[in-house]
């Protein structure tokens, strides 16, 4: 997440509200609006707000602001949303403090100018209000997961809108339109899934710093040995041992979907989808000239629907390649929060880069320092006579822990074997 200027802290108006009878109701109404906006408002939190007013002058808007904000939000991303709702609820259009419960009136103005992205992890398309409500009812984390009710028509409309203003890098040449990935036959999909189930446990673990009991291990567990020795009158009869635990890792896939990767994309997208469904915590990003988070689309249960959505949302599919800039976007926007010493980053690309290789080098270095293992899968490596001599690949190679091919099922098998040997 990039750092946005904070709106909070000082409100434009410091008017004192007239104490009224309906204030309690207004505050509850405000909490309701916040909940509708997507914040997790538990009754415990509401109680704490009221407890706060036992100590504070509730008629002072500054106090009202701090007391509600500190109790209601739990992350930086939620501040902007909270502030917007606060302003809309407690102030009229001229900026004068309101009175009266206007939670009903607030209902219709949601899709207007309340910033999205609060609490949403995915950088996916805009969510309609319905989808938000849906998430809430089900008590899900609002991770940008599209719900089934949300038809693709509305998302396409949203997408078109985004193109018009949101993306300056957009050019007609970038788009080859929606692709049909659904032509994979059932046998192939089954094969792929079986294979991925085999790979996943090997890919998804790392040796932890925590320990667990294991009598065959080398380290003696003094704590347990002493404790058990009490049973035998203080005589240590049996030595207990422990070893490092195997820990789950987070896997991040960064997949090249530019024009040069076209011939592999059917296979690739299937691979991404299967992997995403096997490892729930996986994050998938696709890029050509810019990076987008594909995780929310790929999480969908129906494969065809998921792939359709992905193809329609990622609008520079099959465009040119700017690996360096995309990795940079990744490092800046996501690197801090989701990459750590447990993360395995898999980059799938042919390394044909039309961007600045200097940036690529810099960003690869930064990435490789932060993650547990950086693996580059290059489909071209499968073709005989291929040498990684083009500029992009040559720059990136020194920073990769592994460099492997990924052009068909066989190559994935050999990748599995390789990872097993590590």
């Amino acid at each position, binding site marked *: 997440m990039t750092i946005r200027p904070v709106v909070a802290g000082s409100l434009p108006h410091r008017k004192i509200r007239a104490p009224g009878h309906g204030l309690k109701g207004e505050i509850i109404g405000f909490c309701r609006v916040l909940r509708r906006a997507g914040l997790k408002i538990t009754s415990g939190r509401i109680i704490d707000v009221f407890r706060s007013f036992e100590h504070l002058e509730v008629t002072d808007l500054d106090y009202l602001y701090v007391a509600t904000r500190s109790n209601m939000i739990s992350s930086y991303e939620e*501040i902007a949303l909270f502030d917007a709702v606060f302003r809309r609820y407690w102030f009229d259009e001229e900026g004068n403090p309101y009175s009266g419960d206007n939670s009903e009136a607030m209902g219709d103005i949601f899709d207007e100018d309340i910033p999205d992205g609060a609490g949403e992890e995915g950088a996916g398309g805009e969510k309609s209000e319905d989808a938000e409500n849906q998430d809430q009812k089900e008590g899900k984390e609002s991770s940008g997961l599209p719900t089934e009710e949300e038809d693709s028509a509305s998302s396409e409309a949203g997408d078109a809108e985004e193109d018009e203003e949101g993306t300056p890098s957009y050019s007609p040449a970038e788009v080859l339109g929606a692709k049909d990935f659904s032509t994979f036959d059932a046998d192939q999909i089954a094969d792929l899934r079986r294979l991925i189930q085999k790979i996943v446990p090997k890919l998804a673990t790392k040796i932890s710093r925590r320990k667990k009991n294991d009598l065959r291990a080398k380290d003696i567990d003094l704590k347990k040995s002493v404790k058990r020795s009490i049973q035998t009158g203080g005589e240590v009869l049996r030595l207990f041992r422990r070893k490092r635990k195997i820990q789950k890792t987070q896997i991040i896939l960064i997949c090249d979907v530019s024009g040069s990767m076209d011939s592999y994309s059917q296979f690739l997208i299937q691979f991404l989808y299967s992997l995403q469904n096997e490892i729930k915590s996986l994050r998938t990003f696709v890029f050509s000239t810019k990076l987008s988070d594909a995780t929310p689309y790929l999480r969908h249960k129906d494969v065809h629907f998921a792939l359709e959505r992905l193809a329609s949302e990622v609008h520079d599919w099959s465009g040119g390649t700017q690996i360096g800039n995309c990795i940079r976007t990744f490092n800046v926007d996501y690197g*801090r929060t989701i990459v*750590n010493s447990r993360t395995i980053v898999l980059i799938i690309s042919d390394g044909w880069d039309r961007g600045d290789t200097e940036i690529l080098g810099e960003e690869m270095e930064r990435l490789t320092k932060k993650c547990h293992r950086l693996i580059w899968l290059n489909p071209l490596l499968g073709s005989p006579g291929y040498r990684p001599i083009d500029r992009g690949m040559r720059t990136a190679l020194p920073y990769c822990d592994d460099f492997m091919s990924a052009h068909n099922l066989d190559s994935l098998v050999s990748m599995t074997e390789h990872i097993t040997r590590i």
Partner: protein
Amino acid sequence: MTPSQSGGAKRRKSLEFDFSSPEAVQESIRQNDYIADKTLATTLFLAMKLEKPLFLEGEAGVGKTELAKVLATLLDTELIRLQCYEGLDSNSALYEWNYAKQLLHIKMEEGAKGNTKQIERDIFSEEYLIERPLLRALVRSKEKPVVLLIDEIDRSDEEFEAFLLEILSDFQITIPEMGTIKATRNPVVVLTSNRTREIHDALKRRCLYLWVDYPSFEKEVEIVTTKVPEAPLKLAEQICRFMSEARTMDFYKRPGVAETLDWTQALLALHKDELDADSVRETLGCILKYQDDIKRIEEDGIERMVATAHLSPEVEV
């Protein structure tokens, strides 16, 4: 924190901490050389009144840890700090038996033919218990609440978060061999996070949330002149203007307030009373900690930034 900020012993001890209202809190904090705005003071006030843990989030070096220290000074109480790291477990956070000592005791008693029951009572007594920060906070809070600082919670792992959740909701610890220890007064808990990863919602929901931002220009000047009183006002203003400019740049690690204070002292040590490009270049290491960032600022033109910093506020507005 910087050496300048951590001199707890030098700090004036406030005799009574008046927290009858947020304004009083704000004033007391200010007397202890920490500049707080109304939002911060009110949140702090609420944290103490509601006895809810305070969750401070913000970029590195904006004074999160420092706030906990000031709080301990204000309450005239002990600050117990638990630095988090990956793999932190209950043995290092809560308590641990001194196994080596226990073993020795058993061996010695064996020679003296002591009875087993007595040995057991002996080795599971307080003498053999090593108190770790969380237990210590509960034990010490019996007379007067201590300030428990759980620093950089984002460095720990999910296992520890879950464990912490349990402690923070009950404020009691059960040691099977000794019984349950419960604080009569809850300690004042401050958690900090640099936001290098997301903390689980369940934990954050139990806390009052406060985002600590980089200070505004005016506030930062106030901080510099309070913390480094020997710095001339002109230099302080130039430094702060340079810093707020630098924070708008695309650095991997943006400089915090701690860096501002470090830098001010470095420039004072070099006997500078005004900012110039050469001395900035010499002391860049105080504010930027990555080679890439240093390269970036040099490419961007230190001269230009120094010139901006020299502008008087009237011209700027």
